[in-house]
């Protein structure tokens, strides 16, 4: 195992003095070995965080993370990076709050600047129903120990002067405000975990698609990949939009449908918005990046889709909603638009679970809102994989809940919220 240099102010100065010749690759790109204790399919945030916590919390280090494309090129590198933890249900609040707390110390823990910016997340209440819904979440969060508050239109205006409070269609009646929510740099989260995993001696293999999952007597024995056949004792499937495809390889089906979710950014402008605002009634949310671009997202497309491209009218709807809420953005030009394939479950909550195949575990269903949960999910998934039993965070998210009718129903509580 090669020891990589630590990033620090001193390293920056040292490298500046010697023409930046000393920087090392952040992670190794080895060919896969013949066998691992644990193989993880998917090097998105959740797969990499699972690997990291397997090593860190459970001393399981003979691990490979196999990625068909490039690291973080799935939804982890395509999202709008909103981080919050004010969910309604206890199970959700627990795992999202764990994740939010881990985000606070992630840059220090991983010695990598993930630019976590707890700038505050504001969810506008624009109908009476929504206002009551958010007050209910606020009450639940008080009991759960998640810090959040319900604020008045006046406070909304103070925090975000560019909002048109009075309408025209949907005046702002109040908002759910989580001052310790915010954003982080999505690529950096994937890179930071990859570097830490590589330092622990784990293998991160890009351009390595898993095409088949091999089982014997109902138990996993390995996978076939574009880079050869690999044996493993345990297999973790962490592939978001492709969960159905991977599950089929292992011989089971999921309560999941894959649809496109799009985002777009505007041309850069002077700082005008230093918080994240979500307007769920009109289907739009917005924040401003450090470069000055407005980062914009909306609701998911309506039909099954694996193309990483969405329908234009969804973009139009999102932009229309935001222009109404933020009239000053009406003349901005949009620079880029893209889509990711999100995995939507029946109750809109994730799955962290054992599967019908022994020693195959699945982490999926984060849908439109799983960037914020990456560290908490990795923590919980690592525990499940290491001990073959879900811990306290993962237990409510088992696949069996659909058969038992024990839903974690956030879709009713949070609408389009991410």
């Amino acid at each position, binding site marked *: 195992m090669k020891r990589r240099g630590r990033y620090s102010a001193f390293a920056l100065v040292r490298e500046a003095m010697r023409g930046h010749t000393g920087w090392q690759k952040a992670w190794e790109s080895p060919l896969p070995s013949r066998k691992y204790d644990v193989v993880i399919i998917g090097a998105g945030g959740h797969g990499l965080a699972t690997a990291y916590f397997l090593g860190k919390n459970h001393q399981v280090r003979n691990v490979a993370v196999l990625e068909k494309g490039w690291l973080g090129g799935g939804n982890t590198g395509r999202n709008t990076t909103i981080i919050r933890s004010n969910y309604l249900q206890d199970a959700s609040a627990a795992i999202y709050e764990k994740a939010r707390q881990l985000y606070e110390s992630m840059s220090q823990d991983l010695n990598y600047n993930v630019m976590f910016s707890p700038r505050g997340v504001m969810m506008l209440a624009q109908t009476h129903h929504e206002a009551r819904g958010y007050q209910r979440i606020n009450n639940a969060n008080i009991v759960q120990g998640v810090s959040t508050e319900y604020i008045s239109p006046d406070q909304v205006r103070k925090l975000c002067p560019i909002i048109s409070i009075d309408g025209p269609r949907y005046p702002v009646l109040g908002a759910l405000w989580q001052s310790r929510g915010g954003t982080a740099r999505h690529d950096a989260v994937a890179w930071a975990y990859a570097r830490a995993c590589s330092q622990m001696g784990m293998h991160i293999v890009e351009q390595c698609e898993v095409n088949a999952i091999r089982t014997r007597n109902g138990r996993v024995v390995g996978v076939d990949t574009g880079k050869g056949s690999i044996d493993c004792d345990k297999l973790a499937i962490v592939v978001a939009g*492709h969960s*159905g*495809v991977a599950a089929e390889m292992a011989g089971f*089906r*999921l*309560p*999941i*449908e*894959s649809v496109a979710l799009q985002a777009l950014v505007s041309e850069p402008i002077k700082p005008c918005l230093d918080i994240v605002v979500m307007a769920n009634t009109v289907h739009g949310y917005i924040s401003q990046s450090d470069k000055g671009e407005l980062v914009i997202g909306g609701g998911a497309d*309506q*039909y*099954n*889709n*694996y*193309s990483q491209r969405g*329908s*234009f*009218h969804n973009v139009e709807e999102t932009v229309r909603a935001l222009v109404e809420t933020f009239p000053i953005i009406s003349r901005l030009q949009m620079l880029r638009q893209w889509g990711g394939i999100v995995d939507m*479950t*029946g109750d809109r909550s994730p799955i962290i679970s054992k599967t019908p195949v022994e020693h195959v575990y699945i982490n999926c269903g984060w849908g439109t809102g799983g960037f914020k949960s990456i560290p908490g999910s990795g923590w919980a998934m690592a525990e499940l994989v290491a001990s073959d039993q879900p811990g306290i965070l993962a237990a409510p998210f088992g696949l069996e809940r*659909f*058969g*038992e009718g024990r839903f974690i129903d956030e879709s009713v509580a949070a609408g389009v919220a991410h």
Partner: protein
Amino acid sequence: MLMLTCPYCGIAADETELHGGGEAHITRAGVEASDAEFEEYLFTRANPKGVHFEKWHHSRGCGRWFHAARCTVTMEVFGTYSAQTLQPPDEILAEIERRRPAASGK
């Protein structure tokens, strides 16, 4: 933009005129069904990367439900057909077979 021809009114409808209804040909579980069958009916989905049989509602048109066969990767539409069918009709399957020899039978 996705366009589908409504088999009832014959209009080539923009997707903004339509409402997606998810996977088609799902058998409704009855009162005698087991928990597992109910789970299957309510939640488990094929979610294929490829040919998908799905329900659509011509909500801003004639108001009727119909079925479509579509590729979830290329958005290619193999045909639309009546919702009053338990299985995709032969001509739709033949069209899929013709254009996607490997995917037929799905």
